[in-house]
Protein backbone atom coordinates (compact mmCIF):
# COMPACT_ATOMS: atom_id res chain seq x y z
CA UNK A 1 0.00 0.00 0.00
CA UNK A 2 2.85 2.31 0.82
CA UNK A 3 4.04 1.98 -2.78
CA UNK A 4 0.67 3.16 -4.02
CA UNK A 5 0.64 6.12 -1.71
CA UNK A 6 4.10 7.10 -2.77
CA UNK A 7 4.54 6.45 -6.51
CA UNK A 8 8.11 6.33 -7.81
CA UNK A 9 7.71 9.56 -9.74
CA UNK A 10 6.96 11.57 -6.61
CA UNK A 11 9.83 9.79 -4.87
CA UNK A 12 12.23 10.79 -7.64
CA UNK A 13 11.05 14.36 -7.53
CA UNK A 14 11.51 14.51 -3.80
CA UNK A 15 15.00 13.01 -4.20
CA UNK A 16 15.80 15.66 -6.75
CA UNK A 17 14.72 18.39 -4.42
CA UNK A 18 16.70 16.85 -1.58
CA UNK A 19 19.95 17.16 -3.52
CA UNK A 20 19.11 20.78 -4.25
CA UNK A 21 18.46 21.54 -0.60
CA UNK A 22 21.68 19.85 0.49
CA UNK A 23 23.60 21.85 -2.08
CA UNK A 24 21.88 25.06 -1.02
CA UNK A 25 22.71 24.52 2.65
CA UNK A 26 26.34 23.75 1.77
CA UNK A 27 26.54 26.87 -0.38
CA UNK A 28 25.10 29.13 2.33
CA UNK A 29 27.38 27.61 4.97
CA UNK A 30 30.43 28.17 2.77
CA UNK A 31 29.40 31.75 2.05
CA UNK A 32 28.92 32.51 5.74
CA UNK A 33 32.31 31.02 6.66
CA UNK A 34 34.17 32.47 3.66
CA UNK A 35 34.74 36.11 4.79
CA UNK A 36 36.75 34.81 7.74
CA UNK A 37 39.19 33.19 5.33
CA UNK A 38 38.99 35.13 2.07
CA UNK A 39 39.18 38.84 1.26
CA UNK A 40 35.55 40.11 1.53
CA UNK A 41 35.69 42.46 -1.48
CA UNK A 42 36.64 39.52 -3.69
CA UNK A 43 33.71 37.52 -2.29
CA UNK A 44 31.29 40.39 -2.83
CA UNK A 45 32.50 40.81 -6.39
CA UNK A 46 32.02 37.11 -7.03
CA UNK A 47 28.56 37.21 -5.41
CA UNK A 48 27.45 40.09 -7.64
CA UNK A 49 28.63 38.17 -10.70
CA UNK A 50 26.98 35.01 -9.39
CA UNK A 51 23.62 36.79 -9.30
CA UNK A 52 24.30 38.32 -12.71
CA UNK A 53 25.07 34.86 -14.13
CA UNK A 54 21.96 33.34 -12.49
CA UNK A 55 19.84 36.08 -14.08
CA UNK A 56 21.44 35.36 -17.45
CA UNK A 57 20.93 31.63 -16.95
CA UNK A 58 17.21 32.21 -16.43
CA UNK A 59 17.05 33.19 -20.11
CA UNK A 60 19.49 30.79 -21.77
CA UNK A 61 18.89 27.81 -19.49
CA UNK A 62 15.12 27.91 -19.16
CA UNK A 63 13.83 29.81 -22.20
CA UNK A 64 16.66 28.98 -24.60
CA UNK A 65 17.33 32.63 -25.43
CA UNK A 66 21.01 33.59 -25.69
CA UNK A 67 21.36 37.24 -24.78
CA UNK A 68 24.73 38.61 -25.83
CA UNK A 69 23.95 42.01 -24.35
CA UNK A 70 23.29 41.51 -20.68
CA UNK A 71 25.99 44.03 -19.80
CA UNK A 72 23.41 46.62 -20.83
CA UNK A 73 21.31 45.97 -17.73
CA UNK A 74 24.20 45.22 -15.41
CA UNK A 75 26.20 48.29 -16.39
CA UNK A 76 23.38 50.78 -16.66
CA UNK A 77 21.86 49.74 -13.34
CA UNK A 78 25.32 50.18 -11.90
CA UNK A 79 25.57 53.72 -13.33
CA UNK A 80 22.10 54.75 -12.19
CA UNK A 81 22.54 53.31 -8.70
CA UNK A 82 25.88 55.10 -8.37
CA UNK A 83 24.38 58.36 -9.63
CA UNK A 84 21.40 58.10 -7.26
CA UNK A 85 23.66 57.41 -4.27
CA UNK A 86 26.28 60.01 -5.08
CA UNK A 87 24.48 62.95 -6.72
CA UNK A 88 20.95 62.62 -5.39
CA UNK A 89 22.08 61.38 -1.98
CA UNK A 90 19.80 58.33 -1.97
CA UNK A 91 20.30 55.92 0.97
CA UNK A 92 21.77 52.59 -0.20
CA UNK A 93 18.50 50.63 -0.14
CA UNK A 94 16.80 53.26 -2.32
CA UNK A 95 19.78 53.51 -4.68
CA UNK A 96 19.87 49.74 -5.18
CA UNK A 97 16.11 49.68 -5.72
CA UNK A 98 16.43 52.50 -8.24
CA UNK A 99 19.19 50.64 -10.10
CA UNK A 100 17.17 47.43 -10.11
CA UNK A 101 14.05 49.15 -11.43
CA UNK A 102 16.05 50.86 -14.15
CA UNK A 103 17.21 47.36 -15.16
CA UNK A 104 13.54 46.39 -15.41
CA UNK A 105 12.64 49.41 -17.55
CA UNK A 106 15.59 48.81 -19.89
CA UNK A 107 14.54 45.16 -20.00
CA UNK A 108 11.05 46.09 -21.18
CA UNK A 109 12.44 48.31 -23.96
CA UNK A 110 15.26 46.03 -25.12
CA UNK A 111 13.15 42.90 -24.67
CA UNK A 112 10.24 44.09 -26.77
CA UNK A 113 12.66 44.82 -29.62
CA UNK A 114 14.78 41.69 -29.29
CA UNK A 115 12.07 39.03 -28.95
CA UNK A 116 10.81 39.91 -32.40
CA UNK A 117 13.49 37.58 -33.79
CA UNK A 118 14.62 34.15 -32.64
CA UNK A 119 17.75 32.12 -32.14
CA UNK A 120 20.91 33.54 -33.58
CA UNK A 121 19.28 36.87 -34.47
CA UNK A 122 18.17 37.34 -30.87
CA UNK A 123 21.80 37.12 -29.78
CA UNK A 124 22.95 39.62 -32.40
CA UNK A 125 20.15 42.07 -31.61
CA UNK A 126 20.82 42.07 -27.87
CA UNK A 127 24.52 42.54 -28.58
CA UNK A 128 23.81 45.47 -30.89
CA UNK A 129 21.41 47.13 -28.43
CA UNK A 130 23.96 46.80 -25.66
CA UNK A 131 26.65 48.33 -27.86
CA UNK A 132 24.33 51.24 -28.63
CA UNK A 133 23.84 51.90 -24.92
CA UNK A 134 27.60 51.60 -24.44
CA UNK A 135 28.05 54.52 -26.83
CA UNK A 136 25.32 56.43 -25.00
CA UNK A 137 27.14 55.81 -21.71
CA UNK A 138 30.39 56.95 -23.33
CA UNK A 139 28.82 60.27 -24.38
CA UNK A 140 26.25 60.97 -21.64
CA UNK A 141 27.43 63.71 -19.28
CA UNK A 142 26.42 62.04 -16.00
CA UNK A 143 28.43 58.84 -16.53
CA UNK A 144 31.78 60.61 -16.38
CA UNK A 145 33.03 59.07 -19.66
CA UNK A 146 36.29 57.18 -19.29
CA UNK A 147 36.54 58.02 -15.56
CA UNK A 148 33.16 56.56 -14.63
CA UNK A 149 31.40 57.55 -11.43
CA UNK A 150 33.94 57.30 -8.62
CA UNK A 151 33.75 57.50 -4.83
CA UNK A 152 30.15 56.33 -4.63
CA UNK A 153 29.13 56.54 -0.96
CA UNK A 154 27.93 53.25 0.54
CA UNK A 155 25.94 55.07 3.20
CA UNK A 156 23.92 53.65 6.07
CA UNK A 157 21.43 50.87 5.31
CA UNK A 158 17.98 51.93 6.62
CA UNK A 159 19.87 54.71 8.36
CA UNK A 160 21.27 52.17 10.85
CA UNK A 161 23.89 49.79 9.46
CA UNK A 162 27.10 51.46 8.34
CA UNK A 163 27.98 49.80 5.03
CA UNK A 164 31.49 51.20 4.94
CA UNK A 165 32.39 48.26 7.23
CA UNK A 166 33.36 45.41 4.91
CA UNK A 167 31.63 42.72 6.99
CA UNK A 168 28.34 44.64 7.21
CA UNK A 169 28.47 45.27 3.48
CA UNK A 170 29.17 41.58 2.93
CA UNK A 171 26.08 40.54 4.89
CA UNK A 172 23.95 43.01 2.91
CA UNK A 173 25.28 41.72 -0.43
CA UNK A 174 24.94 38.09 0.65
CA UNK A 175 21.31 38.55 1.73
CA UNK A 176 20.37 40.35 -1.49
CA UNK A 177 22.13 37.79 -3.70
CA UNK A 178 20.58 34.83 -1.88
CA UNK A 179 17.16 36.48 -2.14
CA UNK A 180 17.69 36.89 -5.88
CA UNK A 181 18.89 33.29 -6.16
CA UNK A 182 15.81 31.92 -4.34
CA UNK A 183 13.54 34.16 -6.40
CA UNK A 184 14.97 32.66 -9.60
CA UNK A 185 14.56 29.16 -8.19
CA UNK A 186 10.94 29.97 -7.39
CA UNK A 187 10.38 31.28 -10.94
CA UNK A 188 11.74 28.20 -12.66
CA UNK A 189 9.67 25.88 -10.47
CA UNK A 190 6.42 27.78 -10.89
CA UNK A 191 3.73 27.08 -13.50
CA UNK A 192 5.13 30.12 -15.29
CA UNK A 193 8.56 28.45 -15.33
CA UNK A 194 7.05 25.27 -16.78
CA UNK A 195 5.65 27.29 -19.68
CA UNK A 196 9.08 28.82 -20.23
CA UNK A 197 10.63 25.35 -20.44
CA UNK A 198 7.90 24.32 -22.87
CA UNK A 199 8.81 27.29 -25.07
CA UNK A 200 12.47 26.28 -24.90
CA UNK A 201 11.69 22.72 -25.96
CA UNK A 202 9.18 23.47 -28.70
CA UNK A 203 7.87 26.95 -29.28
CA UNK A 204 5.37 26.20 -32.07
CA UNK A 205 3.80 23.56 -29.86
CA UNK A 206 3.52 25.97 -26.93
CA UNK A 207 1.82 28.42 -29.28
CA UNK A 208 -0.59 25.74 -30.50
CA UNK A 209 -1.47 25.00 -26.87
CA UNK A 210 -2.69 28.56 -26.63
CA UNK A 211 0.20 30.26 -24.88
CA UNK A 212 1.12 33.74 -25.97
CA UNK A 213 4.80 32.84 -26.12
CA UNK A 214 5.96 36.37 -26.92
CA UNK A 215 4.45 37.63 -23.71
CA UNK A 216 6.09 34.83 -21.72
CA UNK A 217 9.44 35.48 -23.34
CA UNK A 218 9.22 39.20 -22.69
CA UNK A 219 8.26 38.54 -19.09
CA UNK A 220 11.25 36.23 -18.60
CA UNK A 221 13.49 38.75 -20.32
CA UNK A 222 12.35 41.56 -18.02
CA UNK A 223 12.80 39.37 -14.92
CA UNK A 224 16.30 38.48 -16.06
CA UNK A 225 17.14 42.13 -16.80
CA UNK A 226 15.79 43.21 -13.42
CA UNK A 227 17.95 40.72 -11.53
CA UNK A 228 20.97 41.61 -13.66
CA UNK A 229 20.19 45.20 -12.66
CA UNK A 230 20.17 44.24 -8.99
CA UNK A 231 23.57 42.62 -9.43
CA UNK A 232 24.95 45.70 -11.19
CA UNK A 233 23.56 48.07 -8.56
CA UNK A 234 25.14 46.02 -5.77
CA UNK A 235 28.45 45.99 -7.60
CA UNK A 236 28.41 49.79 -7.83
CA UNK A 237 28.15 50.00 -4.05
CA UNK A 238 30.74 47.27 -3.40
CA UNK A 239 33.42 48.93 -5.52
CA UNK A 240 32.03 52.44 -5.02
CA UNK A 241 32.51 52.77 -8.76
CA UNK A 242 30.49 52.52 -11.96
CA UNK A 243 32.54 52.39 -15.14
CA UNK A 244 32.46 51.69 -18.86
CA UNK A 245 33.87 48.17 -18.35
CA UNK A 246 30.50 47.07 -17.00
CA UNK A 247 28.55 48.12 -20.11
CA UNK A 248 31.05 46.94 -22.71
CA UNK A 249 30.50 43.79 -24.78
CA UNK A 250 33.33 42.01 -22.98
CA UNK A 251 31.14 42.01 -19.86
CA UNK A 252 28.30 40.40 -21.82
CA UNK A 253 30.80 37.79 -22.96
CA UNK A 254 32.02 37.16 -19.44
CA UNK A 255 28.57 36.34 -18.11
CA UNK A 256 28.11 33.87 -20.97
CA UNK A 257 31.44 32.32 -20.01
CA UNK A 258 30.57 32.03 -16.31
CA UNK A 259 27.26 30.37 -17.02
CA UNK A 260 28.75 28.06 -19.63
CA UNK A 261 31.59 26.94 -17.33
CA UNK A 262 29.22 26.32 -14.44
CA UNK A 263 26.57 24.61 -16.55
CA UNK A 264 23.75 26.06 -18.66
CA UNK A 265 20.34 25.39 -17.18
CA UNK A 266 21.62 24.16 -13.82
CA UNK A 267 20.57 25.84 -10.58
CA UNK A 268 24.02 26.19 -9.04
CA UNK A 269 26.16 26.25 -12.18
CA UNK A 270 26.20 30.04 -12.64
CA UNK A 271 27.31 30.54 -9.03
CA UNK A 272 30.18 28.08 -9.36
CA UNK A 273 31.12 29.52 -12.75
CA UNK A 274 31.10 33.09 -11.45
CA UNK A 275 33.38 32.27 -8.51
CA UNK A 276 35.80 30.38 -10.75
CA UNK A 277 36.03 33.04 -13.44
CA UNK A 278 36.32 35.94 -10.98
CA UNK A 279 39.02 34.04 -9.09
CA UNK A 280 40.84 33.30 -12.33
CA UNK A 281 40.71 36.93 -13.43
CA UNK A 282 41.98 38.20 -10.10
CA UNK A 283 44.78 35.70 -10.14
CA UNK A 284 45.71 36.32 -13.77
CA UNK A 285 45.33 40.12 -13.70
CA UNK A 286 49.13 40.45 -13.65
CA UNK A 287 49.46 38.63 -16.96
CA UNK A 288 47.59 41.34 -18.86
CA UNK A 289 46.17 40.30 -22.19
CA UNK A 290 46.59 36.59 -21.54
CA UNK A 291 43.27 36.75 -19.66
CA UNK A 292 41.55 37.28 -23.01
CA UNK A 293 43.33 34.29 -24.54
CA UNK A 294 42.54 32.04 -21.59
CA UNK A 295 38.89 33.08 -21.60
CA UNK A 296 38.77 32.26 -25.29
CA UNK A 297 40.35 28.86 -24.74
CA UNK A 298 37.80 28.07 -22.00
CA UNK A 299 34.96 29.06 -24.33
CA UNK A 300 36.25 26.76 -27.06
CA UNK A 301 36.93 23.88 -24.68
CA UNK A 302 33.48 24.19 -23.10
CA UNK A 303 31.69 24.12 -26.44
CA UNK A 304 33.73 21.26 -27.88
CA UNK A 305 34.06 18.82 -24.99
CA UNK A 306 32.42 20.16 -21.88
CA UNK A 307 28.97 21.38 -22.80
CA UNK A 308 27.31 20.39 -19.53
CA UNK A 309 29.65 22.57 -17.49
CA UNK A 310 31.10 21.71 -14.09
CA UNK A 311 27.86 21.44 -12.14
CA UNK A 312 26.11 19.80 -15.07
CA UNK A 313 28.79 17.10 -15.27
CA UNK A 314 28.68 16.60 -11.52
CA UNK A 315 24.90 16.29 -11.50
CA UNK A 316 25.11 13.86 -14.42
CA UNK A 317 27.74 11.73 -12.69
CA UNK A 318 25.80 11.61 -9.42
CA UNK A 319 22.45 11.22 -11.15
CA UNK A 320 20.87 14.08 -9.21
CA UNK A 321 19.54 17.55 -9.93
CA UNK A 322 21.86 20.41 -9.03
Amino acid sequence: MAALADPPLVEARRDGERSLWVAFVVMVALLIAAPFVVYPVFLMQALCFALFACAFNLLIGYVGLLSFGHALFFGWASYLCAHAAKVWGFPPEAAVLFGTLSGAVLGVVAGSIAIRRQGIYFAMITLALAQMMYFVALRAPFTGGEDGIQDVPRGHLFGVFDLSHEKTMYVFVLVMVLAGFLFIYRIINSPFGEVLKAIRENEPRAISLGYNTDRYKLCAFVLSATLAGLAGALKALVFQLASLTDVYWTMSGEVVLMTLVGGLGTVFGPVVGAFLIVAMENYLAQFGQWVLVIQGVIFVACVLVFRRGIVGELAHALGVKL
Partner: protein
Amino acid sequence: MVEIFGIPSYALFGQLLIGLINGSFYALLSLGLAVIFGMLNIINFTHGAQYMMGAFAAYLMLQYLGVDYWIALVVVPILIGATGILIERLFLQHIRKLDHLYGLILTFGLALIIEGLFRNQFGSSGKPYQIPALLQGGRNLGFMFLPNYRAWVIAFSLVVCFATWFAIERTRLGSYLRAATENPALVRAFGINVPRMVTLTYGFGVGLAALAGVMAAPIYNVSPQMGSDLIIVVFAVVVIGGMGSILGAIVTGFALGVIEGLTKVFFPEASSTVIFVIMAIVLLIRPAGLFGRTV
Protein backbone atom coordinates in the same frame (compact mmCIF):
# COMPACT_ATOMS: atom_id res chain seq x y z
CA MET B 1 31.97 78.18 -51.40
CA VAL B 2 28.99 76.01 -52.29
CA GLU B 3 26.61 75.27 -49.42
CA ILE B 4 23.89 72.65 -49.17
CA PHE B 5 21.37 72.89 -46.31
CA GLY B 6 23.72 75.44 -44.72
CA ILE B 7 26.59 72.90 -44.70
CA PRO B 8 29.66 73.56 -46.86
CA SER B 9 29.70 71.08 -49.72
CA TYR B 10 33.24 70.00 -48.87
CA ALA B 11 32.14 68.84 -45.43
CA LEU B 12 28.97 67.22 -46.70
CA PHE B 13 30.59 65.28 -49.54
CA GLY B 14 33.60 64.53 -47.40
CA GLN B 15 31.40 62.77 -44.85
CA LEU B 16 29.43 61.14 -47.63
CA LEU B 17 32.70 59.72 -48.93
CA ILE B 18 33.67 58.44 -45.48
CA GLY B 19 30.19 56.95 -45.28
CA LEU B 20 30.69 55.15 -48.59
CA ILE B 21 34.08 53.86 -47.40
CA ASN B 22 32.58 52.53 -44.17
CA GLY B 23 29.71 51.18 -46.22
CA SER B 24 32.18 49.25 -48.41
CA PHE B 25 33.52 47.50 -45.34
CA TYR B 26 30.04 46.85 -43.93
CA ALA B 27 29.04 45.37 -47.28
CA LEU B 28 32.14 43.17 -47.64
CA LEU B 29 31.90 41.89 -44.08
CA SER B 30 28.16 41.31 -44.00
CA LEU B 31 28.47 39.58 -47.36
CA GLY B 32 31.01 37.17 -45.86
CA LEU B 33 28.79 36.60 -42.84
CA ALA B 34 25.80 35.91 -45.06
CA VAL B 35 27.72 33.45 -47.25
CA ILE B 36 29.02 31.59 -44.19
CA PHE B 37 25.65 31.60 -42.47
CA GLY B 38 23.95 30.24 -45.58
CA MET B 39 26.21 27.19 -45.74
CA LEU B 40 27.25 26.52 -42.14
CA ASN B 41 24.33 27.95 -40.19
CA ILE B 42 26.89 29.67 -38.01
CA ILE B 43 27.19 33.35 -37.24
CA ASN B 44 30.91 33.79 -37.56
CA PHE B 45 31.84 35.93 -34.56
CA THR B 46 35.50 35.48 -35.53
CA HIS B 47 34.84 37.58 -38.64
CA GLY B 48 36.06 40.80 -37.00
CA ALA B 49 39.23 39.12 -35.80
CA GLN B 50 39.83 37.70 -39.29
CA TYR B 51 39.41 41.17 -40.79
CA MET B 52 42.01 42.38 -38.28
CA MET B 53 44.31 39.48 -39.19
CA GLY B 54 44.05 40.54 -42.84
CA ALA B 55 45.15 44.08 -42.00
CA PHE B 56 47.97 42.81 -39.79
CA ALA B 57 49.17 40.31 -42.38
CA ALA B 58 49.44 43.12 -44.92
CA TYR B 59 51.26 45.33 -42.40
CA LEU B 60 53.71 42.60 -41.38
CA MET B 61 54.44 41.55 -44.94
CA LEU B 62 55.26 45.13 -45.89
CA GLN B 63 57.30 45.70 -42.76
CA TYR B 64 59.40 42.54 -42.72
CA LEU B 65 59.25 41.04 -46.20
CA GLY B 66 58.82 44.18 -48.27
CA VAL B 67 55.76 42.73 -49.95
CA ASP B 68 53.76 45.63 -51.34
CA TYR B 69 50.04 46.37 -51.19
CA TRP B 70 49.12 44.85 -54.55
CA ILE B 71 50.65 41.49 -53.81
CA ALA B 72 49.19 41.54 -50.30
CA LEU B 73 45.76 42.16 -51.82
CA VAL B 74 46.01 38.73 -53.49
CA VAL B 75 48.16 36.74 -51.06
CA VAL B 76 46.63 37.80 -47.73
CA PRO B 77 43.04 36.67 -48.42
CA ILE B 78 44.37 33.28 -49.54
CA LEU B 79 46.59 32.98 -46.48
CA ILE B 80 43.94 34.03 -43.95
CA GLY B 81 41.33 32.01 -45.86
CA ALA B 82 43.58 28.99 -45.31
CA THR B 83 43.61 29.63 -41.56
CA GLY B 84 39.82 29.76 -41.82
CA ILE B 85 39.81 26.34 -43.47
CA LEU B 86 41.96 25.08 -40.62
CA ILE B 87 39.48 26.49 -38.07
CA GLU B 88 36.58 24.85 -39.87
CA ARG B 89 38.35 21.46 -39.93
CA LEU B 90 39.58 21.68 -36.34
CA PHE B 91 36.52 23.12 -34.63
CA LEU B 92 33.45 24.05 -36.59
CA GLN B 93 32.86 20.71 -38.28
CA HIS B 94 32.41 19.08 -34.87
CA ILE B 95 29.53 21.28 -33.79
CA ARG B 96 27.48 21.24 -36.96
CA LYS B 97 24.73 19.12 -35.40
CA LEU B 98 24.42 21.24 -32.26
CA ASP B 99 22.24 24.25 -31.59
CA HIS B 100 23.30 27.33 -33.61
CA LEU B 101 24.06 29.14 -30.39
CA TYR B 102 27.10 26.95 -29.77
CA GLY B 103 28.55 28.08 -33.08
CA LEU B 104 28.22 31.69 -31.99
CA ILE B 105 29.83 30.98 -28.62
CA LEU B 106 32.66 28.94 -30.14
CA THR B 107 33.54 31.58 -32.73
CA PHE B 108 33.31 34.24 -30.02
CA GLY B 109 35.90 32.28 -28.03
CA LEU B 110 38.15 32.01 -31.09
CA ALA B 111 37.85 35.78 -31.61
CA LEU B 112 38.97 36.38 -28.02
CA ILE B 113 41.97 34.07 -28.49
CA ILE B 114 43.06 35.75 -31.71
CA GLU B 115 42.59 39.28 -30.38
CA GLY B 116 44.39 38.42 -27.13
CA LEU B 117 47.36 36.91 -28.96
CA PHE B 118 47.70 39.92 -31.24
CA ARG B 119 47.47 42.33 -28.31
CA ASN B 120 50.20 40.41 -26.51
CA GLN B 121 52.43 40.52 -29.53
CA PHE B 122 51.79 44.02 -30.87
CA GLY B 123 50.24 46.04 -28.02
CA SER B 124 47.07 48.03 -28.38
CA SER B 125 48.37 51.04 -30.26
CA GLY B 126 47.58 51.49 -33.93
CA LYS B 127 50.21 51.06 -36.62
CA PRO B 128 50.17 53.15 -39.79
CA TYR B 129 50.21 51.56 -43.26
CA GLN B 130 51.41 53.60 -46.21
CA ILE B 131 49.01 54.17 -49.10
CA PRO B 132 50.52 52.45 -52.18
CA ALA B 133 52.46 54.85 -54.41
CA LEU B 134 50.13 54.37 -57.36
CA LEU B 135 47.12 55.62 -55.41
CA GLN B 136 48.64 58.48 -53.48
CA GLY B 137 47.27 61.97 -53.92
CA GLY B 138 43.81 62.84 -55.13
CA ARG B 139 41.82 65.05 -57.42
CA ASN B 140 39.72 68.12 -56.92
CA LEU B 141 36.23 67.60 -58.29
CA GLY B 142 35.20 71.23 -57.74
CA PHE B 143 32.67 70.47 -55.01
CA MET B 144 34.99 68.21 -53.03
CA PHE B 145 38.47 66.69 -52.83
CA LEU B 146 38.59 62.98 -53.71
CA PRO B 147 41.65 61.04 -52.49
CA ASN B 148 42.57 58.39 -55.05
CA TYR B 149 42.90 55.59 -52.53
CA ARG B 150 39.38 56.09 -51.21
CA ALA B 151 37.93 56.11 -54.70
CA TRP B 152 39.78 52.84 -55.31
CA VAL B 153 38.38 51.23 -52.14
CA ILE B 154 34.80 52.05 -53.09
CA ALA B 155 35.21 50.92 -56.70
CA PHE B 156 37.09 47.73 -55.86
CA SER B 157 34.72 46.64 -53.11
CA LEU B 158 31.79 47.18 -55.46
CA VAL B 159 33.53 44.91 -57.97
CA VAL B 160 34.24 42.25 -55.33
CA CYS B 161 30.66 42.38 -54.06
CA PHE B 162 29.28 42.08 -57.56
CA ALA B 163 31.64 39.22 -58.42
CA THR B 164 30.55 37.34 -55.30
CA TRP B 165 26.91 37.90 -56.11
CA PHE B 166 27.51 36.72 -59.66
CA ALA B 167 29.40 33.62 -58.54
CA ILE B 168 26.66 32.58 -56.15
CA GLU B 169 23.56 33.50 -58.12
CA ARG B 170 24.66 32.94 -61.72
CA THR B 171 27.22 30.12 -61.96
CA ARG B 172 27.00 26.35 -61.75
CA LEU B 173 29.14 26.20 -58.61
CA GLY B 174 26.90 28.81 -57.03
CA SER B 175 23.82 26.78 -57.84
CA TYR B 176 25.37 23.74 -56.11
CA LEU B 177 26.04 25.97 -53.16
CA ARG B 178 22.49 27.26 -53.00
CA ALA B 179 21.11 23.76 -53.42
CA ALA B 180 23.32 22.49 -50.60
CA THR B 181 22.04 25.30 -48.40
CA GLU B 182 18.48 24.12 -48.99
CA ASN B 183 19.04 20.39 -48.72
CA PRO B 184 22.57 19.10 -48.10
CA ALA B 185 21.59 15.42 -47.93
CA LEU B 186 19.99 15.46 -51.37
CA VAL B 187 22.89 17.34 -52.94
CA ARG B 188 25.29 14.78 -51.46
CA ALA B 189 23.21 12.02 -52.98
CA PHE B 190 23.96 13.56 -56.39
CA GLY B 191 27.64 12.90 -55.77
CA ILE B 192 28.70 16.38 -54.75
CA ASN B 193 31.15 16.58 -51.88
CA VAL B 194 29.14 18.84 -49.57
CA PRO B 195 31.49 18.77 -46.56
CA ARG B 196 34.34 20.00 -48.76
CA MET B 197 32.07 22.68 -50.15
CA VAL B 198 31.22 23.78 -46.60
CA THR B 199 34.91 23.99 -45.71
CA LEU B 200 35.75 25.99 -48.82
CA THR B 201 32.78 28.30 -48.26
CA TYR B 202 34.04 29.12 -44.81
CA GLY B 203 37.52 29.72 -46.22
CA PHE B 204 36.04 32.00 -48.86
CA GLY B 205 34.02 34.01 -46.33
CA VAL B 206 37.09 34.42 -44.16
CA GLY B 207 39.10 35.43 -47.24
CA LEU B 208 36.57 38.19 -47.92
CA ALA B 209 37.03 39.46 -44.36
CA ALA B 210 40.81 39.42 -44.80
CA LEU B 211 40.51 41.27 -48.11
CA ALA B 212 38.48 43.96 -46.36
CA GLY B 213 41.24 44.08 -43.74
CA VAL B 214 43.95 44.68 -46.35
CA MET B 215 41.88 47.42 -47.95
CA ALA B 216 41.24 49.00 -44.55
CA ALA B 217 44.91 49.02 -43.50
CA PRO B 218 45.87 52.31 -45.25
CA ILE B 219 42.68 54.06 -44.08
CA TYR B 220 42.42 53.11 -40.44
CA ASN B 221 45.34 52.33 -38.17
CA VAL B 222 46.16 48.64 -37.96
CA SER B 223 45.41 47.55 -34.39
CA PRO B 224 44.36 44.33 -32.64
CA GLN B 225 40.95 45.70 -31.61
CA MET B 226 40.02 47.16 -35.01
CA GLY B 227 37.69 44.25 -35.73
CA SER B 228 35.79 43.72 -32.51
CA ASP B 229 33.80 46.95 -32.47
CA LEU B 230 33.26 46.81 -36.21
CA ILE B 231 31.81 43.30 -36.10
CA ILE B 232 29.01 44.40 -33.76
CA VAL B 233 27.98 47.14 -36.18
CA VAL B 234 28.11 44.58 -38.98
CA PHE B 235 25.81 42.32 -36.94
CA ALA B 236 23.33 45.19 -36.77
CA VAL B 237 23.68 45.64 -40.54
CA VAL B 238 22.98 41.95 -41.02
CA VAL B 239 19.91 42.13 -38.78
CA ILE B 240 18.61 45.13 -40.74
CA GLY B 241 19.19 43.55 -44.15
CA GLY B 242 18.29 40.00 -43.25
CA MET B 243 20.62 37.22 -44.31
CA GLY B 244 18.34 35.73 -46.94
CA SER B 245 19.79 37.67 -49.85
CA ILE B 246 23.33 38.40 -51.05
CA LEU B 247 22.25 41.54 -52.87
CA GLY B 248 20.38 42.65 -49.77
CA ALA B 249 23.54 42.42 -47.67
CA ILE B 250 25.47 44.54 -50.19
CA VAL B 251 22.81 47.23 -50.59
CA THR B 252 22.17 47.48 -46.84
CA GLY B 253 25.89 47.74 -46.12
CA PHE B 254 26.46 50.67 -48.47
CA ALA B 255 23.19 52.41 -47.55
CA LEU B 256 23.91 52.28 -43.83
CA GLY B 257 27.44 53.56 -44.33
CA VAL B 258 26.03 56.58 -46.18
CA ILE B 259 23.34 57.19 -43.56
CA GLU B 260 26.00 57.02 -40.85
CA GLY B 261 28.14 59.53 -42.77
CA LEU B 262 25.22 61.94 -43.19
CA THR B 263 24.36 61.64 -39.49
CA LYS B 264 27.91 62.75 -38.75
CA VAL B 265 27.20 65.99 -40.64
CA PHE B 266 23.74 66.83 -39.37
CA PHE B 267 23.66 65.28 -35.91
CA PRO B 268 27.19 64.26 -34.88
CA GLU B 269 26.24 63.10 -31.37
CA ALA B 270 24.18 60.27 -32.84
CA SER B 271 26.70 59.05 -35.43
CA SER B 272 27.91 56.07 -33.40
CA THR B 273 24.39 54.93 -32.46
CA VAL B 274 22.40 55.64 -35.61
CA ILE B 275 22.81 52.16 -37.12
CA PHE B 276 21.58 50.53 -33.92
CA VAL B 277 18.60 52.87 -33.77
CA ILE B 278 17.74 51.99 -37.36
CA MET B 279 18.02 48.33 -36.43
CA ALA B 280 15.52 48.80 -33.58
CA ILE B 281 13.08 50.66 -35.85
CA VAL B 282 13.36 48.04 -38.60
CA LEU B 283 12.73 45.28 -36.06
CA LEU B 284 9.60 47.02 -34.82
CA ILE B 285 8.21 47.61 -38.31
CA ARG B 286 9.50 44.66 -40.31
CA PRO B 287 10.91 41.98 -37.98
CA ALA B 288 12.28 39.79 -40.79
CA GLY B 289 14.65 42.55 -41.95
CA LEU B 290 14.44 44.55 -45.17
CA PHE B 291 15.42 41.72 -47.51
CA GLY B 292 14.99 38.74 -45.21
CA ARG B 293 12.64 35.83 -45.12
CA THR B 294 10.97 35.07 -41.82
CA VAL B 295 13.13 32.85 -39.67
